[in-house]
């Protein structure tokens, strides 16, 4: 009497932040087939970038592709357009940009961890992580003036310099956060119920990570050394103490640990940057209109982000193409869902840290 049940997850569901629809065909609660629909958030940003906005504005528009990795989108666009315009930035600008990118990564990872905990029914952990996350949010707010959409990066440099008070706040908060992350690692590794909920659940093997084009923490948790920060030298990551973090099994547990360790690494990088900051200009003057094309790759919190820009010498760009990490992770996600329990599905989904507004744009 194999009987199939279909369980919908979305488009509105408490475990989802964004509208996305999964339709699980289940036997008992074992998922046998997944039907997915990710296009709820499509707004037409790529089109608008070439028709509605001038190239100087596009940086702020693409930030609204996704609120979580907003800075990465702006950053990738800016790097691309700077390449076309042939602008050379100084060390200080690069460092400040990395600082913001890494702060963004910390808060995004923490949010993902909190969401995973919440979706696996661990309210206490959710509250704890969200409480700790406020430390990073404070630094971001102090530096950029906004908590989420900071619009910190602009073509030719950054919009704001970092003040001494900010620096002091950042140092204390990061040191505090570092301790809290250590604590979190302990909590995630030693809890009986989280072990049941995370270990060997939603595992993506090393081979599958390649087959399904896994990116970011997802791939690194499976042991695949895929990280744009290590491959590309467009930003001086090596100088600030970047270290590749790899997991083994690729299950939720490993993904959580990889994220936590990356947070530690990011904290280290931020501290290095803050202690090594030099005086200097934060904005490079530039002239002319973009003409030509460029490709940019950048590591967003979720994995590689890819920008293709094509400009024809006018104020309007000819083509903006954005490829986001979640988009390429969906086949892998579907594969993992098959054979796991519906009870685990929200946690698996959260541990993928999907970003549907990135995907649908």
């Amino acid at each position: 009497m194999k009987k199939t049940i279909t369980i919908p997850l979305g488009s509105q569901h408490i475990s989802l932040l964004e509208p996305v629809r999964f339709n699980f065909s289940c036997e008992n609660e074992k998922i046998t087939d997944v039907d997915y629909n990710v296009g709820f958030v499509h707004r037409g940003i790529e089109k608008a970038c070439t028709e509605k906005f001038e190239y100087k504005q596009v940086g702020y528009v693409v930030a609204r592709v996704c609120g979580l990795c907003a800075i990465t989108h702006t950053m990738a666009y800016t790097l691309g357009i700077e390449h076309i315009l042939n602008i050379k930035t100084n060390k200080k600008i690069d460092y400040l940009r990395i600082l913001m990118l890494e702060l963004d990564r910390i808060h995004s990872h923490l949010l993902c961890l909190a969401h995973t905990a919440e979706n696996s029914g661990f309210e206490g952990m959710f509250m704890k992580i969200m409480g700790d996350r406020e430390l990073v949010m404070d630094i971001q707010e102090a530096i950029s003036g906004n908590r989420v959409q900071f619009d910190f990066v602009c073509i030719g440099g950054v919009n704001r310099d970092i003040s001494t008070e900010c620096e002091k706040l950042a140092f204390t908060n990061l040191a505090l956060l570092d301790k809290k992350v250590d604590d979190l690692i302990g909590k995630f590794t030693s809890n009986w119920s989280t072990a049941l909920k995370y270990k060997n659940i939603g595992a993506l093997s090393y081979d599958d990570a390649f087959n399904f084009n896994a990116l970011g923490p997802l791939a690194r948790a499976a042991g695949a050394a895929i990280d744009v920060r290590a491959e590309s030298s467009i930003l001086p990551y090596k100088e600030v103490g970047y270290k590749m973090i790899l997991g083994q099994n690729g299950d939720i547990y490993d993904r959580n640990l990889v994220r936590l360790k990356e947070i530690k690494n990011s904290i280290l990088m931020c501290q290095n940057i803050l202690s090594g900051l030099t005086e200097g200009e934060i904005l490079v003057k530039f002239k002319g209109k973009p003409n030509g094309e460029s490709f940019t790759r950048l590591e967003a919190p979720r994995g590689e982000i890819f920008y293709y820009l094509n400009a024809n010498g006018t104020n309007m760009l000819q083509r903006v193409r954005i490829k986001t990490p979640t988009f390429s992770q969906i086949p892998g996600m579907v594969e993992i869902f098959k054979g796991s329990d519906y009870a685990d599905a929200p946690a698996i989904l959260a541990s993928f840290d999907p970003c549907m507004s990135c995907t649908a744009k």
Partner: protein
Amino acid sequence: MVHFLIGFFDFVLLLYFMKVGFDFKNIKIQILALIQLILFAFAELNFTHSGSPDFIIDELAIFMMIIINIVGGAIALYGIKYMLYEDAPKYKKDIFLVYLWIFLVIMNFAVISNNLLYFFFFFELTTLSSFLLIKFRNDDISNKNAINALLLNMIGGLFLLIAVCLNLFTNHSIYINEIIQNKDYISAAMIFVVFAAFIKGAMKPFESWLLGAMVAPTPVSALLHSATMVKIAPFLVLKFSPVFSYEISFLITLLGMFLFFIFALEGLGKNSFKEILAYSTISLLSLMIAVAAIGTKESYEIALLLIFFHAISKAILFMCAGILEKLHHIKSIDDMQGLMSADKPLALLILVSFATVALPPFGLFFAKLFFVEYLAKLIQTDILYIFIILFFVVGSSILVLLYFKIASLLLSTNNHQQTPAKTPLSFVASSYFLFVFMILSIIYLVTTKSDISIFSIIFGALFVSLIVSLFVFKFNNLQKISVYACGENTIGQIGQFYFDFEKYAKYFLYVAIFLWLVLFGVSL
């Protein structure tokens, strides 16, 4: 004279079984019939009358006769209506009904026989009538299952005959009233009687005959499962339980309780409505045997309660199954979806019948409740009864799961929108009659036991008002809104959990056989 007639007909019967064996080319039946013939001849030759009467109508017999005649009678009346829907020639339908009545008569005689040889005769007659009834539809599967039933029941008959011969061989009485007064009665002979009871009661590993019986028209299943046939098992155990030694009584209880748990578990994995009912029957039968085997005054009363209320509930449920089959063309529980909207009275009747098997304030529940109380007393003196408790509490919970798993399907209104149909009153009349009968008996029970009265009044009132409000309140003045489906309009497939215990069935069987062997060994 009576003795001669019974002996004569018994020979004829055994010869008929032999013929059936030849007809169906079943060598096992022929051998069994032959052995039985020889043993029977031996018994007849060695048999001498003692002073005891051949038939005794004692309290237990009256009790059984009430069940057989009231419940069985209701089923037989229901059978008349049922046969109108059956696709068979007129004369066959009539024969079928006659079989049903004869069956009831045989049962009446079986429960009053005091002479084990007479009892053997009626025992074999029930075998015969169940064989004929199962064979009624005369297709391949009916024949196969009928033969299987015949074969297994003949093994039971053989056990009974062995017991008789052992008794005669050791110059013991074969009159039941003498046996149960004689404390030094040899247990080996008695254990054969118990084994015969087990086979009639479809204990593992002999449950296949009762499960196969559902190919017959539903009144047969109703009759076999509720009032007749299988009830011989707890009846026999009840008769003999006063002379069980401690070990035997405990082992039978353990076996019964284990099977109670196992059958409930196995029933969870089944799909056909009648099959699930059958599993719940043998599960509860095992419980009855277990309770009966304890052999004290309390356990005797509890066993009677179980037998009585189980017979009524199961009869109602099987009659409903028959209606489902004939009127709504539903056999599998998956097709039962949406019955609540299609035929509300019938669905509610099924639902309430499920409640009568598992929930307060109904009879079977009280039997279980008294049993828990009694077990709590027992365990104080004998810690071994902890195993009984474990199997019992887990098994009962699983039965609740089993019933309400099906209930879920009645209620959900999803994929199969059934066409509304109204069950004719004449079809459900017997069910209603039995239902009223049960309510009256519960009221009687409650008035005799004062400590449960308040409890049952509260919950009885709740139940009644619930049923009434389900019919009365429609909340038409309130706004109705659609269900929550994540903001979408479409609702997916809805279903319940299924359980698959097939892979464990093997191990259950081993344990059951092991317990049988231990039981046999201890009795020697």
